[in-house]
């Protein structure tokens, strides 16, 4: 995901461009963290990203007092759950945050993904068995089909209708899991497959009770997805999503094929939800018709809204927090739905942009534009200045 540096600019005009970045971003953007980030040189940004990724990989190994979820909950397992929620939040963020489509049945895709993993790996299933890792892309593909089938009739509808139809979709998936005998209802599927690999002592690496390997698998997927989504964001796709979120009619009139881009957002979101479901199925090792309820869809929504709609880094934090809080503060775990429901209302009233309200960058060559602005103010139209300069 190279973003290209502006070509052949004198260092002076580069400096001026940097100044301008400062001037032009100041009034309209959030100051602080994102401001600091935007002013790091590329190498600095990459450096910090590397450190952040390294820290993320080390997370389940360091058991920091006060932060850890133990003794109530095993810390590596908690990390795995946080990563899973983060992945789901990233996917839902594409749908809700970027394209502005309120999806209240996201758990339906998650469930489909989980069932795909179970059906093709569990000994309880009569289908052909395939290696577990192959079920991740398979789950993504199957859920895309579901997403497109649901999207084609419903994405022309206005936002609130879409919300209720997707809510219905989530419920239908859950009910079908109960009704269809082949999906085994509450009995479910035991011993869902897992990735291969053994440690030095010959023990399996990926076991249900060990969170760390699953966590690493999940964040590896997350990193790949983040790079891919970053590419989409800084292109026509990301711009058109935000445009149709901001004003669908105006976007259509400006030449955005709104329906097509909504369908893409819906499909990509579905694929990520399905993938996360397949990972969950592998880690827990058991899939049945419980837990795929509306409450879970709403929790996913809370994750996106809390982190900041439209901001994929925010989605990671939001997802991790939604998983972390009930695991860490076991005393309030019982009230988590109540608390997160209230969080939704409070956020909407006081901070609808979420914790991280930074909008994404939508241009591949944004620095090139800064340079042009710098040139613009370097050579003002008054001829006197120009003569003095030469």
């Amino acid at each position, binding site marked *: 995901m190279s973003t*290209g540096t502006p070509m052949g600019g004198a260092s002076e005009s580069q400096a001026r461009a940097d100044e301008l970045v400062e001037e032009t971003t100041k009034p*309209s953007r959030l100051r602080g963290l994102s401001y600091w980030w935007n002013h790091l040189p590329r190498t600095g940004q990459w450096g910090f990203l590397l450190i952040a990724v390294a820290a993320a990989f080390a997370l389940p190994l360091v058991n920091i007092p006060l932060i850890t979820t133990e003794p109530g909950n095993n810390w590596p397992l908690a990390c795995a759950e946080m990563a899973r929620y983060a992945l789901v939040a990233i996917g839902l963020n594409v749908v809700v945050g970027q394209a502005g489509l309120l999806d209240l049945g996201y758990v339906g895709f998650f469930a489909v993904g989980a069932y795909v993993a179970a059906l093709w790996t569990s000994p309880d299933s009569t289908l052909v068995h395939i290696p577990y890792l192959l079920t991740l892309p398979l789950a993504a593909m199957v859920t895309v089909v579901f997403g497109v089938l649901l999207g084609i009739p419903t994405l022309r509808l206005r936002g609130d209708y879409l919300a209720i139809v997707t809510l219905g979709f989530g419920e239908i998936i859950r009910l079908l899991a109960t009704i269809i005998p082949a999906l085994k209802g509450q009995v479910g599927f035991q011993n869902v497959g897992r990735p291969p690999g053994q440690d030095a002592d010959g023990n399996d690496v990926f076991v249900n009770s060990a969170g760390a390997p699953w966590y690493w698998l999940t964040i590896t997927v997350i990193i790949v997805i983040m790079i891919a989504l970053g590419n989409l964001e800084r292109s*026509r796709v990301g711009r058109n999503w*935000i445009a149709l979120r901001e*004003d669908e009619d105006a976007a*259509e009139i*400006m*030449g955005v094929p709104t329906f097509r881009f909504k369908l893409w957002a819906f499909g990509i979101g579905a694929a990520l939800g399905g993938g996360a479901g397949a990972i969950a199925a592998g880690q827990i090792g058991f899939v049945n018709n419980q837990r795929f309820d509306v409450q879970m869809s709403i929790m996913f929504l809370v994750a996106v809204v809390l982190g900041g709609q439209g901001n994929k880094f925010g989605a990671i934090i939001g997802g991790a927090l939604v998983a972390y809080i009930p695991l860490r503060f076991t005393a309030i775990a019982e009230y988590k739905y109540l608390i997160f429901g209230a969080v939704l209302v409070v956020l909407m009233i006081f901070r609808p942009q979420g914790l991280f309200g930074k909008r994404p960058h939508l241009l591949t060559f944004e620095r090139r534009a800064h340079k042009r602005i710098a040139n613009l103010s370097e050579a003002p139209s008054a001829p006197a200045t120009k003569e003095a300069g030469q």
Partner: protein
Amino acid sequence: MTDKLTPPSATPKPDAPPPLDSEVAQLAAPEREIAVEVGDKLVEIQNLTMRFGGLTALDDVSFDIKRGEILGLIGPNGAGKTTCFNAMTGVYRPTEGQVLLEGEAIGRRKQHKITRLGIARTFQNVRLFGEMTALENVVVGLDARHKVGVWGSLFRTPRLYREEKEAIDRGMALLEFVGIADKAMDQASALPYGYQRRLEIARALATDPKLLCLDEPAAGFNPAEKEELMELIRTIRDDGYTVLLIEHDMRLVMGVTDRIVVLEFGKKIADGLPKDIRNDPTVIAAYLGEED
């Protein structure tokens, strides 16, 4: 980038947009082949009728827009001007009649397809993508001509890089063209009102239209700003665009247009040069008491 073209207006005002340098003029100029010659019919509106339930908003309206002209569409409130606009840009489906662009009916195409065919518009009440920067707004308009899709963006194909680079250059040129390039990186919703209006024009121009429709672009402007806007509209025309202008302000319309079509109660009541329209008794009767 040092040599400058003579600005299109004879006497630039001190706060008028800076004169364009050749690169900007070149980048902002329309790029497309247009089948009809300058002065020939670019758009034909034939017997356009719009009914909403029992209400007839447009009644058998016909007129042409010639390539390279600024056509004014005026009429008292509720005369059907915006309805006409909406029927031309695909927001409404005409009850009867049709709109031809370069001799081809735009038919029942989707709105974004009509935009790609070459009809762009601005909105009476500004409708920018408020969360985006000014430049990003313009680039959304440019995207109407871009070919790269989801796969190309995902894998960063050479075409994507070409299009993205071109988008920055052309987008910045368009912002310079309308005189707001200094605010290119500001959030659109934070721009001053006059800038927002100009940004809408730049965004519409970005789709590389054959016909640019401006819906009351001077609404809420003071006389000085109106003067600047007239200048800009003339520059746009001189650059090779065709303009359809809906406007309430008669002075502005008379000052800038080449030809005027007058609607009243959904019917066309006059069609002619500004000086003829000014003296047309039917038009005067229609506007009686609406003098501004």
